[in-house]
């Protein structure tokens, strides 16, 4: 059996499927190479200071820092807000609900994970932004905070489902052993199941964050759209900008080949690298947990 050739027969089926496989495996590489190549002009014009420049005036100067800052802030905020709800409901669903109730919760989560981003955006601009404005006495409700809250709601189903899978992956015998030693159910969960599922839980959170960081349309509508780091820097109730929103706002006018287009692609490259780091870490942790 070890002598089997790598590709047994090279009929038309081989070449046809091979072509399809090349297309689907090559896409991601092509995507990355294009991002790098197309962002060269802006790095030529601005140097590496593109990454920490704070001024972005189309046609004059391009600095990405406010957008990078905005991306990190809204994603971090979404993380803080989604964590208790996602983990709490994952633990409840996996450890305390009956099989039938669990199926219903999971199905509901899958439906919700599919709700189009534009609907969250509509909800954000028509309702959430108004509530934030009135609740905190702001002039304008389109702020980094609003975007963070909206993202937290958007990634809740994803994080919850993946975290629940991670908890379910802990074998039942582990629970039985802990219970037979006299631990209560909640002690079993908190001291035995959760520590064992920790890599999977962390993976779920990373994947959720990757989604949050790349989400465009909903954030674009509520983040305020001002390329500025607020003063002081931790003032989340100020309008800001993140990378996807910046690309979304300017892509239509920059469509083409000048430096502005290249600057947007370079922003895309930065976003790509950040999201890939989160997702690869997440998939690695989840794979390890299995």
């Amino acid at each position, binding site marked *: 059996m070890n002598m089997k050739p790598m590709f047994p027969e090279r*009929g038309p089926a081989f070449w046809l499927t091979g072509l399809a496989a090349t297309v689907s495996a090559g896409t*991601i590489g092509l995507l990355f190479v294009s991002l790098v190549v197309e962002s060269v002009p802006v790095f030529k014009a601005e140097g590496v200071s593109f990454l920490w420049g704070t001024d972005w005036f189309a046609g004059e100067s391009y600095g990405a820092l406010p957008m990078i800052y905005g991306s990190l802030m809204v994603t971090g905020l979404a993380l803080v807000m989604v964590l208790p*709800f996602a983990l709490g409901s994952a633990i409840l669903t996996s450890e305390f609900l009956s099989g039938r109730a669990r199926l219903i919760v999971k*199905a509901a989560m899958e439906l919700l994970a599919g709700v*189009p981003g534009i609907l969250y955006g509509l909800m954000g601009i028509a309702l959430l932004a108004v509530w934030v404005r009135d609740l905190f006495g702001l002039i304008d409700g389109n702020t980094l905070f609003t975007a963070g809250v909206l993202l937290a709601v958007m990634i809740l189903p994803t994080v919850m489902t993946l975290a629940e899978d991670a908890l379910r992956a802990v074998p039942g015998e582990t629970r039985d052993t802990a219970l037979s030693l006299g631990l209560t159910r909640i002690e079993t969960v908190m001291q035995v199941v959760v520590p064992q599922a920790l890599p999977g839980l962390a993976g779920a959170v990373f994947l959720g964050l990757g989604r949050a*960081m790349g989400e465009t349309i909903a954030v674009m509508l509520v983040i305020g759209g001002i390329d500025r780091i607020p003063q002081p820097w931790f003032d989340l109730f100020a309008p800001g900008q993140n990378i996807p929103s910046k690309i979304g706002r300017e892509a239509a006018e920059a469509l083409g080949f000048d430096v502005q287009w290249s600057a947007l692609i370079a922003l895309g490259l930065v976003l790509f690298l950040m999201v*890939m780091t989160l997702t690869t870490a997440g998939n690695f942790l989840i794979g390890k947990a299995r």
Partner: protein
Amino acid sequence: MNPRLWKERTTVFILYGLTGCGGLVLAVILTTVIMKGAPALSGEFLFEESRNFGLEGGIFYQMIGTLILMVGAAMVCLPVALGSVLFQTEFLHSSKLKKMFRFLIYSLNAVPTIIFGLIGYLFFGVLLEAGVSWVTGVLILAVMILPTLHVSIHEAVESIPDHYREAGLALGLSPGQQMRAVILPQSVYGIVTGTLLGLARAAGETAAIMFTATAFSGVRLPQSWNEPVTTLQTHILVLSQEAANPAALTHAWGAGLVLLTLVLFLISVTLWMRTGMEMEAER
């Protein structure tokens, strides 16, 4: 009371509270779209074209545009995803290469959709000279939903019992015959559910098509391959930016309800099919 029992009860209570809050938020979202969208719906709304920059009339051509893009994307994507899965399961034997392949597909799944828009425009809009058009949109969405179809079909093919393949091999089938006679018929479920999920994803996507495939007003059906369409997603996007105008918002909520119904219907069918399959497997 026993402190351990007390701790048990409070923690479970807190868990229910957290879950309840999460569930409540999500329930509010669904009811809001339904409550706000339902008043806008009428025969006129569904079957007339939009007038006066979306403030009057209906969303007929927007619905058609969304359908064109999502069905086109699925039709382009399906053969590629299918072929790619078959190559991976039937011809690739090195587990290292298989892992590598899986990694690439999972990475593609994580790419922010706006990046598909940017780079997709370069390739399809500029190099293929399709410009801002429905063809560009279809191709971009096809790439975007590739991982969705791929993973679903792959799962189905992997779950075919070994003795089915062995029976085929014993009959002396070539890989091509094996695929036609054994693999494809046995993985129809995965192909259908994967395609439905892909359709749902394509229908819900806005960022990748807003500057590559669509125009807001004055568009009906595309007459040639390099004309833009108008879609529900981008219609909502433009209207929601006029949130101060109640007429714009009403139309946006109405279009939102139609879009949500479409997407949730597609996902429900896949969920229903999948539970049916699980029950069959348990029997």
